[in-house]
């Protein structure tokens, strides 16, 4: 199907974006890798597209004041996956990139677009929650800093106001001894996950964030509490897998039943813990 007739505006600066955005019927166009498909299906019929893809203030990756990294909203998945700062300070994001769609889509899709679209099966929202990242937003009223855990409010819904856009994402500095991993189960390479898990273990904290099993990324606190930071005995792992039944309430979807999703989540947890276990012999070289 073809998109409906539409108006098009190209912003050259953040000031222009802020002057034009927030009016009814205006949608932001960044990488367009989800938006253009929804326009083609006529699931979304804005009056006007405001093209922000050339706005310099939304670009770049740099060290942030607290020692973490700041990732501009327009950073493409391909760029993110190759960046040395990201590799050094947020390797979870590097590991996530090959799981996202296909090379041609990763070349244009952006981190800001992925977070703002808030697909419940997408990788980057779950990674941001697992890392304790902050979403930096901006509108004509000023900037806000929103913890990723509070940013995703429902199915394709976020804390963004109608006149507000994502400026950047900031991840905290990785703690010494921290280990992260992401894994997912999909029927074909590049498909959205049937279920996935982004996990982070530091010396004093374990965080398990599931995706594709709820309306938003789901922080599995009961399972994490049952585990602590390891090393983990088979009994502790089994207890955590059982605790997932209290953490997760997956809806039935095209991939299968809630019971099927719970099963996948238990499998993912077992595999993730094998990667994160702090016992040296658990990681044969």
């Amino acid at each position: 199907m073809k998109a409906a007739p539409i108006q098009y505006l190209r912003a050259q600066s953040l000031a222009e974006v802020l002057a034009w955005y927030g009016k009814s019927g205006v949608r932001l166009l960044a990488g367009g890798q989800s938006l253009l498909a929804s326009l083609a299906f006529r699931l979304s019929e804005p009056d006007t597209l405001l093209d922000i893809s050339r706005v310099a203030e939304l670009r770049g990756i740099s060290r942030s004041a607290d020692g973490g990294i700041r990732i501009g909203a327009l950073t493409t998945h391909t760029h993110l996956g190759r960046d040395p700062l990201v590799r050094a300070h947020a390797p979870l994001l590097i590991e996530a990139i090959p799981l996202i769609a296909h090379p041609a889509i990763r070349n244009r899709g952006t981190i800001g677009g992925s977070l703002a679209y808030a697909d419940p099966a997408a990788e980057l929202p779950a990674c941001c929650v697992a890392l304790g990242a902050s979403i930096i937003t901006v509108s004509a009223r000023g900037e806000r800093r929103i913890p990723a855990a509070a940013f995703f409010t429902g199915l394709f819904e976020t804390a963004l106001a109608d006149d507000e856009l994502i400026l950047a994402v900031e991840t905290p500095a990785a703690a010494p001894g921290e280990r992260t991993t992401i894994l997912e189960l999909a029927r074909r390479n590049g498909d959205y996950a049937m279920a996935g898990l982004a996990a982070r273990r530091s010396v004093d904290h374990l965080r398990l964030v599931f995706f594709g099993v709820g309306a938003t990324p789901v922080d599995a606190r009961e399972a994490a509490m049952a585990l602590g930071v390891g090393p983990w005995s088979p009994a502790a792992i089994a207890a955590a897998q059982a605790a997932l039944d209290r953490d997760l309430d997956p809806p039935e979807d095209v991939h299968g039943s809630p019971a099927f999703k719970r099963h996948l989540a238990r499998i993912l947890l077992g595999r993730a813990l094998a990667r994160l276990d702090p016992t040296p012999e658990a990681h044969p070289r």
Partner: protein
Amino acid sequence: MTSEIDVTLTVNGERITRRVEARRHLVDFLRLDLQLMGTRTGCEHGSCGACTVRIDGALARGCLVLAASLEGSTVDTIEGLSDSGEIRDLQEAFIARNATQCGYCTPGMLLTAADLLASAAIARVVPSREDIRDHISGNYCRCTGYQAIVDAVETVAKAREAAR
């Protein structure tokens, strides 16, 4: 603000200016406005890969890009890659292995395979069959002739490595 935009871009080395409807995606722009019929219209929502082109040197889905947004960009299509000779060995291997079959996915497959081989050459590695399958996983062949396509790409990957 307007629903028609003047856009100037470079397509297969030629500088082109056209007035386009804002909703016009790049595949329709290539096929209907420029009469470049090599790039296919497939699913038109980013799933099938038949419309794969290069924008500013990077692989892209033509159906997920608005022509109006490409002011100043460089677009390369199967016609450009064919004329330059850049993928002659790939095209010959596709023919030798009967990897084209109905031909609908072929331009997108060739662009995607060329991208893999180019990045493998920079990294000085020979892609495995698994690497090839992973890289073309976003390009659907409805004849299901993947085996022959992987054979053809693997043949060229090895031949290019041997020639280095």
